[in-house]
């Protein structure tokens, strides 16, 4: 796995992402500065990590989405390369137009930072092939702007084409509860049309070591490893 983690001013989960990638693959990912205009040659996975790029000024992810490296990330995605955006990275992918919809302020206006159950909605993706369909995993969330919205046609298309990767749920997998942020259909993560781009608000990279209370996030990085080895 040749991974690159993009560092924006204000990113703060890049080391967590790098560690999860290292644990899953045994290989050290490159850390790429947002001002660069090219990815390292042979990059097969780009990770946009969590944090508060540009202090969330203007809109979360808006300024980072216009940084020089994003041209290369877009080209990588268009070639079919894998892109994972976590939390602020998801916001950046949305602002860059690589994923549809928008992420608004949480419905209750509160920053939520806690453990959260997710239901894996599909295993047919490079990011979820090591989970089982309907599996409930527990990872953590930490965001103030994770309220996913999109127009009716877009939501219908995402649902119809199986492009919802994860939903917020309770321990039994029930997704009908209030959820942490008000997202439509309890959406926690979505794929691009070709499923090579995943954006998600929760942090799988923080649950990859039993020392910190669970390893449910490890499956995502193992899935990427499997997809790239295939």
């Amino acid at each position: 796995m040749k991974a690159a983690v993009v560092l924006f001013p204000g990113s703060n989960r890049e080391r967590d992402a790098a560690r999860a990638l290292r644990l899953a693959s045994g290989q050290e990912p490159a850390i790429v500065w947002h001002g660069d205009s090219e990815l390292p040659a042979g990059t097969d996975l780009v990770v946009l990590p969590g944090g508060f790029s540009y202090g969330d000024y203007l809109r979360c992810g808006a300024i980072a989405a216009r940084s020089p490296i994003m041209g290369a990330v877009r080209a990588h995605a268009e070639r079919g390369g894998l892109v994972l955006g976590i939390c602020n990275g998801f916001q950046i992918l949305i602002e860059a137009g690589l994923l549809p919809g928008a992420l608004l302020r949480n419905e209750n206006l509160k920053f939520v930072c806690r453990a959260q159950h997710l239901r894996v909605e599909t295993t047919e993706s490079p990011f979820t092939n090591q989970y089982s369909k309907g599996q409930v995993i527990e990872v953590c969330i930490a965001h103030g702007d994770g309220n996913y919205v999109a127009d009716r046609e877009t939501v219908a298309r995402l649902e119809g084409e199986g492009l919802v990767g994860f939903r917020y749920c309770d321990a039994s997998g029930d997704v009908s509860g209030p959820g942490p942020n008000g997202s439509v259909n309890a959406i926690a993560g979505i794929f691009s049309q070709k499923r090579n781009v995943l954006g998600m608000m929760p942090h799988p990279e923080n649950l990859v070591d039993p020392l910190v209370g669970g390893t449910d996030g490890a499956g995502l990085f193992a899935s990427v490893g499997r997809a790239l080895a295939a």
Partner: protein
Amino acid sequence: MKARVTVTLKNSVLDPQGKAIEGALKSLGFDGVGSVRQGKVFDIELAGSDRAAAETALKGMCEKLLANTVIESYRVDIAE
């Protein structure tokens, strides 16, 4: 030239901050507040005096950065 760009959430998009402000105004005793929508204002100084060119440039700024047109609409006003 001076211009003001106003960006607001589209009416179809829920505005939890506006709702909270609306509630606070009501609790302060301001009766008759129907609803509140929060937005952003950008005051921009531009070189040159060509209004048409300025308007084109400002619209470009809105489309590319200042507004997220998925959820927001914008208005451009150029000062006389």
